[in-house]
């Protein structure tokens, strides 16, 4: 078969090919727009009924048709905050280990293990969390925290294992690979010359990291945290298994709660009233908007960073 076509035919074929590729690419844009439109249209009922009150009331009473998102928002915020407090320093330490400290073979093994941790499906974290980790927390960790830090309202209450703290810790394990991967890339972007001149002045590894690498890559490190935050906010199955799924707002981290995602996973298929369904979709809309904003922000932030670093030095 000849590769050559007639010139006119060739031009037409090229144009068609480009057009097909561009239409497929537009599907991505269309999908994002459709997400927003479909979700808004599907929760008109509860948008109209509750308005802004939806965000500031915590009643969740399907029996009487009263819905408010406050306890879900609170639970999402608290579980995410716990996850970030644990995952950010750990990821930083792991990235540091991978880039600056580990010998090549150990680096590969550790890097692979952390990446495989990201591949473990959410529901497996849920199984492990519910049957193994939550009982472990109830027996070994929470009693100690209660005894030593029980004067804080954060650590009041019976150690049940199921609750905000356990959910937050599991979330931390789940987002840690994502954050440390970006942080590792940021560390590697620092030009070797800069680091070497600091080493040449007699600085130790930690001093180089703290004063050169981290300062040089601070924007990238922050961007990595936002990416992790975006992941944590929408994690569903693992959290649904271990958070307890009640609608109370309690200051104690040992207490149960719910997140937007866990409420959706738990109630959606049992919701028969149109208002209940609509309120659940509105919860979903809130989650979509929040994670959308977080993602856009993180990517814009990281993009401006690569541009700067590429041009810099």
């Amino acid at each position: 078969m000849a590769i050559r076509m007639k010139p006119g035919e060739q031009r037409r074929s090229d144009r068609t090919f480009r057009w097909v590729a561009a239409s497929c690419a537009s599907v991505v844009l269309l999908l994002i727009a459709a997400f927003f439109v479909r979700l808004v249209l599907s929760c008109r009922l509860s948008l109209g009924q509750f308005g802004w009150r939806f965000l500031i009331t915590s009643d969740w009473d399907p029996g009487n048709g009263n819905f408010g998102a406050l306890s879900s928002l609170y639970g999402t915020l608290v579980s995410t905050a716990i996850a970030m407090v644990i995952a950010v320093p750990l990821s930083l330490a792991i990235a540091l280990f991978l880039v600056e400290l580990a010998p090549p073979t150990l680096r590969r093994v550790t890097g692979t293990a952390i990446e495989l941790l990201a591949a473990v499906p959410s529901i497996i974290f849920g199984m492990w969390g519910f049957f193994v980790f939550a009982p472990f927390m109830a027996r070994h960790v929470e009693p100690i925290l209660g005894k030593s830090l029980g004067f804080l309202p954060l650590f009041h209450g019976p150690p049940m294992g199921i609750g905000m703290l356990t959910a937050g810790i599991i979330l931390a394990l789940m987002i840690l690979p994502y954050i440390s991967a970006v942080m590792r890339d940021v560390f590697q972007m620092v030009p070797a010359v800069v680091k070497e001149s600091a080493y040449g002045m007699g600085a130790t590894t930690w001093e180089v990291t703290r004063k050169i690498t981290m300062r040089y890559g601070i924007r990238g490190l922050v961007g990595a945290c936002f990416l992790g935050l975006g992941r944590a906010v929408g994690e569903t199955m693992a959290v649904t298994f271990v958070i307890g799924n009640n609608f109370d707002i309690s200051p104690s981290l040992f207490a149960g709660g719910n997140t937007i995602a866990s409420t959706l996973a738990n109630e959606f298929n049992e919701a028969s009233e149109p208002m209940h369904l609509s309120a659940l979709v509105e919860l979903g809309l809130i989650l979509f908007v929040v994670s959308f904003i977080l993602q856009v922000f993180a990517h814009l932030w990281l993009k401006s960073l690569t541009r700067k670093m590429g041009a810099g030095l």
Partner: protein
Amino acid sequence: MIPRAAAGRKVTDRLVMVVSACAALLGILALAWILLVVLQKGAAAINWEFFFHRTLPTGAPDGGVGNAILGSALLVALAVVIGVPIGLMVGVYLAEFGRDTRLGTAVRFSANVMMGIPSIIVGLFVYTLLVMPMHTYSGWAGAVALAILMLPVIARTTEDMLQLVPNTLRESALALGASRRKVTFQIVFRAAKVGLLTGVLLAIARISGETAPLLFTALNSPYWPTTLNSSVANLPVTIFNYALSPYEDWVRIAWGASLLITAGVLALNISSRIILRRGSHE
């Protein structure tokens, strides 16, 4: 500035090294703990009935997850059929035509954003798009939800892999008079095939364990999958339903299914790594 004593600085340095090694160890231990638990509890559930019988009510002595295995395979296969061609074409556009165009920049950015949209929202979206108008949960809806999850992953890896192919290769084919379609599919794709295969495998690994997008779309079913027009049995939702039930035999089966999914996902991940490494050595 007065320099701190050298000994103090060295101690801090060592301390930080120990802490960061511990953090890495903690990550490895967490993975090992999860895998060991899944292996130990899951192996106890694996037998002939587990693979070849369908899900049965609690108390039935020979229930399995055969229907869920088959259903999951069907949903993933259908998602691949829908998601991979579109994803590849998005990648082709980004790498071959849209490196600097406005559409290219917008699509690249949106694909990145889309990768971070929670999978439960994808399920909710497909519910409002397909399940509500059709008035029934369906295998189609489940496959579409999984395909949407695959799309940005395939698009981005395809773009990255095509960009690695040197431009001289494209130019020489074009100079011979080949059309863009031929250059892309017969020259560039062939040069990038290892990378493309890895991207597809990783995307399949990512969707095989997804539960949240199936909850509102394919739901679950105790029967063998005979049609995609109603709910379809699948492993992740079976795990969710069984694990939180009070019945011991169901929980045991949930562990077996967890082992199956974990083994599958990790095998896909590791094999794609091996393929990539071998490909780059050649």
